């Protein structure tokens, strides 16, 4: 992923404790081997219309503990496949956060109370800043840990391993 890229899009707001069951429901277990199909159901149990409404570049904005629950990497993968540019939340569950980096989906910790549904956001990944155009305010996000930047810029974990023929963190 290019860290210098600027992201822009509309915000879709969700609450606290958005579980991986809400993102990639277990009843679609059989679609895990067909990710584009599974992506049509992304976040379905939190907002049944989300997959239809979301446009490439838009943002998923959550509250506390986003992505809690199962280890299914399919959850961040289908958020990315739906075209989402980044997930913003006050905090992330551990496995989900790690999976985001591995699949190349930016996960940004910030004060999401300053963002409402439908706000247009511009994000400078490298600069660590979100500009909320509708509210005309800047929101800082915590920079990613160094090891994660390294993995991201090598194109995710498999890219990192291939490039370095093993770990080089």
């Amino acid at each position: 992923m290019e860290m210098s890229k600027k992201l822009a899009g509309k915000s879709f707001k969700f609450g606290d404790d958005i579980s991986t069951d809400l993102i990639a429901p277990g009843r679609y277990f059989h679609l895990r081997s067909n990710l584009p199909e599974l992506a049509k159901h992304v976040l379905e149990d939190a907002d049944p219309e989300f997959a239809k409404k979301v446009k490439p570049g838009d943002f998923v904005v959550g509250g506390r503990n986003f992505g809690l629950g199962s280890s299914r990497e399919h959850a961040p993968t289908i958020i990315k496949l739906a075209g989402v540019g980044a997930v913003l939340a006050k905090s992330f569950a551990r496995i989900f956060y790690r999976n985001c980096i591995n699949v190349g989906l930016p996960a940004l910790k910030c004060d999401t109370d300053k963002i409402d549904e439908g706000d247009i956001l511009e994000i400078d990944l490298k600069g660590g800043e979100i500009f909320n155009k509708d509210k005309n305010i800047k929101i800082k996000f915590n920079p990613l840990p160094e090891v994660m930047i390294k993995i991201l810029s090598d194109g995710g974990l498999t890219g990192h391993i291939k490039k370095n023929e093993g770990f080089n963190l």
Partner: protein
Amino acid sequence: MGKTISEKIIGKHAGKEVKAGDIVVVDVDVVMAQDGTGPLAVDQIKNMGFKKVKNPDKSIFFIDHAAPSPRKELSNSHMVLRNFANKSGAKISDVGEGVCHQRLIEDYSCPGDIVIGADSHTCTSGALGAFATGMGSTDIAVGFAMAKTWLMVPETIKINLGGKLPKVVFAKDIIISLIGKITSDGATYKALEFGGPLLANLTMDDRFTISNMAVEAGAKTGIFPTDNITKDYLASQNRSDCFKEISTEEDADYKDIINMDCGKLEPMISAPHTVDNTIKISELEKVELNQVFIGTCTNGRLSDLKIAAEILKGKKVAKGVRLIVVPASKKIYTEAIKEGIITDLVESGAAVMAPGCGPCVGVHEGALGDGEVCLSTQNRNFKGRMGNPDSFIYLASPATAAWSAIKGYISDPREVL
């Protein structure tokens, strides 16, 4: 300053002294994936250009989440795992063998190990004194291929369990109560390390239940020191040789210490739709049930089936309630048959299914209808978890589940035991 158990184990596997916050590459002892996460891990192993797994004897694919397969797409995923296991030398634990975490503690995880698995409840093996944690398919693919992973050494919250456990309060009630206290993200990035005088009275089954649910507080692992109870358990699995002393150090640098007086506990419930939405059973309003489920990597062990059978024997499940029972592994199932437990359960009206995850994750065998309510012994009750976002899941111990199945609504097992 002493070291936490996690610091000691990770340090050994990193080949140097470590402390909380360090980021290290470590050797891993056991690597696993299940049928929901395994196929993607296989893809990633191939993407990286690997054909074999590094340590075949301790690389395992478990077919447990959709086992036996309810539809062709999943049957095909199972074929991917069997074929890859065949070619790579990895082990396969197939239909009927049981839930991954139960199989790991029976046959694979040892004290002092680092165990990584593409399933969030991999922390269950922590009860054996292993540093065991869940990750996604890509991380696990690297683990399979290289027997290595990277870790941030976690800070540790020490949980001192004390007091005399009341007769009808179980490990499940302890852990539900703890999660209610520290909340669903109270231990994110951290290890929970259990200690205190009550450990002497906690069986391995109790400890597995507690470690299993550490992740429901966001924890990276839920780890126990080892003792004679651990030793006896490993001996019962014909694995005495893998016993190691794993001890806590009183002066370790804990982030936090929580003292829990378990003498004051009563049966606990997690109400929909989060595990930390906990309530004492005496404070719960009447909740009518459509389904009761006893099983899973949390509470599908022999002692769980035994207490359920003790309550259900000679009685009948309430009209209008379905009771589903799934032993966590073949070993448990066989033992429960020998002891007459399965007969008691079936005669009371239970539908007993093949060892595996059963209805826990909403794939098959007991998906809920619109508006239906289930009381389950599993570890999470998120909206949609059992296959329907318009249903309601309550969590409790097997004793509460069994007694409630008879009554038809959530009921206090102290009325019967």
